[in-house]
């Protein structure tokens, strides 16, 4: 493909460890939800099962356990390496990724996926942080942007083990070449149940929807120097999350389960994914009405 950097940029300008938070083991038995609880922007510590009220499709559930920061993390770095990132921004991006890798604990793991129009798994999920660092510094920027397709691939590659998965996205522009629609990828995110955090340079409706549907967050970078700090913030936010478990009672098994999570008393911002799917085929989210 002759690359189309200019046109892609112009289109962009115009558009301005398991823990899937919800997981069924052996049938449908236990649901797990990653929950962020903050007050004044700071994590609220010391909460127990009795502090949380969970409704599954409107039916109150009994929270069985609450853990904080016990399981190791599996962090997927999903980084935009299209032409618009080339130069200083890419250097800052590599440093930010390195900062995140440095902040991982010994039993945490990381993988690196980069995307322009092509999505590239640079480093599969590994405990070998040196491999991730080396790959970060080998990145180069060129091409158009297939953000949605890259997210679909990252969601599909999430590990199924006893770690807490997190996808951390960085992009500085709008999608220009993806096959998949926003609705399709958001639907996948709801099904997979992985927390997705995003650091972006410009406002992006898709990233907002993606974060909302996964119980994640978005951060806006006002300068490239801020990237390192924001990447670390995203990791800290993940570590400060509670992991709630409950066994669903009084609700039908198949289909979409809407979740409501709140504190029984006290004021705080509670963020969790809006629900989870069991079994049935998608009711919505065709890949391609655009």
């Amino acid at each position, binding site marked *: 493909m002759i690359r189309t950097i200019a*046109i892609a940029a112009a289109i962009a300008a115009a558009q301005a460890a398991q823990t899937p938070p919800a997981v069924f083991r052996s049938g449908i038995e236990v649901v797990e939800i990653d929950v962020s609880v903050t007050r004044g922007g700071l994590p609220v510590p010391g909460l127990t099962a009795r502090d949380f009220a969970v409704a599954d499709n409107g039916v109150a559930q009994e929270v069985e356990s609450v853990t904080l920061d016990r399981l190791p993390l599996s962090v997927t770095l999903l980084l935009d390496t299209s032409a618009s990132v080339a130069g200083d921004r890419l250097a800052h991006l590599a440093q930010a990724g390195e900062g995140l890798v440095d902040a991982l604990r010994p039993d945490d793991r990381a993988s690196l996926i980069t995307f322009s129009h092509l999505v590239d798994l640079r480093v599969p999920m590994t405990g070998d942080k040196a491999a991730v660092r080396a790959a970060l510094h080998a990145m180069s920027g060129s091409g158009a942007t297939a953000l949605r397709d890259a997210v679909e691939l990252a969601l599909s590659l999430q590990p199924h083990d006893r770690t807490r998965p997190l996808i951390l996205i960085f992009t500085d522009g709008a999608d220009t070449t993806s096959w998949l629609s926003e609705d399709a990828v958001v639907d996948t995110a709801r099904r997979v149940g992985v927390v997705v955090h995003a650091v972006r340079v410009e406002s992006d409706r898709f990233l907002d929807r993606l974060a909302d549907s996964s119980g994640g967050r978005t951060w806006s970078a006002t300068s490239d120097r801020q990237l390192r700090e924001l990447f670390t913030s995203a990791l800290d936010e993940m570590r400060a999350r509670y992991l709630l478990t409950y066994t669903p009672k009084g609700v039908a098994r198949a289909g979409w389960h809407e979740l409501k999570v709140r504190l029984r008393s006290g004021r705080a911002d509670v963020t969790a994914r809006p629900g989870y799917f069991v079994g049935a085929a998608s009711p919505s989210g065709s890949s391609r009405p655009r």
Partner: protein
Amino acid sequence: MAGVGGRAARATPEAQRAAVMLHTDAGITLLSASATSLGLLHFTTASRIVNAMRSGRGDQLFERRWLAFVATVYTANGRLGDADRMIRDALSWYSSEPLLYVARGALVEMRIAMTFVDLRSGNQIARRDRAYDAAAADYRRAIGLDDRLAIAHLRVGWLHFTTHDPRARENFDAALTRATEVRDRYLVQLFLGAAAERDGRLDEAERAYSAAQTLAPGCQTPYIALARVGHALGRAAQAAASAAAFTALPEKSNDPWWDFHLGGFDHVSLAWLHAQAQAP
């Protein structure tokens, strides 16, 4: 290079075609490396040679196809003004060349894509829809001139699909029966998959995407589409397998979807032009 046209006029047709393609290849390489001025200089030189060739006899198929091809290069590189001028000039010489209408339709589509449309503004939406109609009219004109042109059926079909026009399906079926190039057969399978998926016929979508994957096993899009269908069917393991299969590919290929989507850079025409330039 002022004397290029004069010297070219005295060269043999074989030498003319070879010179055109040397400059064309250099122009493409330089444009894709963001050396825009140098790249355009090579296209200007090639254009002078083609102008000299136009005074020759015969069907001038090489000249017509080269002009349409370079218009797609300009469009794919955001040189929409250059593409517009080239198409207008070329149509004044070859008004019955269908690929020029395909190139013009793609140019119109890119103009739409690069224009912000406020979806709250009825006027802006109406203007956009009129532009879509103009692109569709160009594709239909191309089909009228050469009904066998699969890429024209594909482009009008995709336009209809994106605007929820029910004629998309018949356009795709027409493309399917006419497609001989791998690129066109691949794209039609992707588009049939998209149409089936939108209608909720996920098994049929899966078959179409798998067919696309078989045609172009190194291309990214079928793997992504199949992963998505796997999720939509509630088959996470299938989605994971498709994603893993893509990441395990030893070599990835240029995906025709990217070129189709970003202005229609025409690799099929490029290959044809090269073959003509090398022919005795």
